């Protein structure tokens, strides 16, 4: 599996933008420091449903130390909102793991 970082996806380097089908499709692959942290990130970010009832789906998965997210959306702006929220939440998970992870003495 190829690894792409978040910057590439943000520049539009994500896979498969099928505008003609009115289906926006973005994939993010986020490398984490370890397999355990990828698994924890998945556990924290997967349970909540998208707040918007229709027009967007989001799938999360983890393989090794990589967390992958795949969106399908009807409109670009719906996708933008979801991706933005996801990145905020991911940043919070990473910061929590950094501050309260096993290597940090408390």
């Amino acid at each position: 599996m190829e690894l792409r970082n978040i910057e590439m996806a943000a520049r539009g380097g994500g896979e498969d933008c099928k505008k003609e089908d009115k289906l926006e499709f973005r994939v993010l692959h986020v490398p984490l420091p370890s397999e355990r942290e990828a698994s924890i990130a998945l556990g924290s970010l997967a349970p909540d449903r998208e707040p918007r009832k229709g027009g967007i789906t989001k799938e999360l998965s983890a393989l090794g130390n990589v967390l992958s997210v795949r969106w399908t959306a009807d409109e670009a702006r719906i996708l933008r909102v979801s991706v933005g929220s996801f990145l905020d939440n991911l940043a919070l998970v990473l910061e929590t793991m950094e501050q309260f992870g096993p290597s940090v003495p408390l």
Partner: protein
Amino acid sequence: MTVVIGFEGSANKIGVGIVRDGEVLANPRRTYITPPGQGFLPSETSKHHRGVILTVLREALQQAALKPADIDCVAYTKGPGMGAPLVTVAIVARTVAQLWRKPLLGVNHCIGHIEMGRLITHANNPTVLYVSGGNTQVIAYSEKRYRIFGETIDIAVGNCLDRFARVIKISNDPSPGYNIEQMAKKGSQYVELPYTVKGMDVSFSGILSYIEETLFAMLVEITERAMAHCSSQEVLIVGGVGCNLRLQEMMRIMCMERGAKVFATDERFCVDNGAMIAQAGWEMFRAGQLTDLADSWITQRYRTDEVEVTWRD
């Protein structure tokens, strides 16, 4: 010995509390306060919580003088409340639960208020008036459920007060309700009609007194009705609006006429806080309830009577 940490952030307060066998070891909290005339919106509230939650968590552990290893269970607010802030808090709870390898418990926010009220006041089996910015319910316990006897058919009483404060641009610091109460105290005249003009000036404290008297009288009436149905001799007031001394006084007058008792807590515990989630989590954990990670999604709607109250007889 059972130690539970609780995370709460369903509205504009973010709190992390730690409870050990009925003792509140720590209960730090921050409030997202908006300028006068503005309410708080989900995305900004969530951003506020994201910015401070880890600091508050660290404070809680320090105040309790505990390490993560000392915690037995991680409780968080599953709902009801605002979506984005609920998610923010749930995410941190899930992360530390996995990091520290502790079981997770999703708690109903209203039940958090009730269990903290019961703990602090030692009320035995009260009729509960739950009044806050987001909720207005009259609740009584019966056969493993907190039954909703009555509720607002539209907005919560605190929401009504907050919106009114917004219109007349009362400060939101520390909370609009608190400032309404202080101003209403200065109003000595109960005004029948909510329209007071003195020459070129207007007087608002009369209107606020009117607002409070009318809203609170309505709440006292429905509480009294529930007490009559349940043959109850105790009232417990929980939720942010429960801090209001006039409401407590009016409830006390009604109760005295019935030979009943009123219980209320101070602002540490009636305003949203983390320890109340920890306390409800403590009850649930000891009764054997747990929340799987996959089922730990938050929900904006979560009725008080949806929860099976396995910890009471």
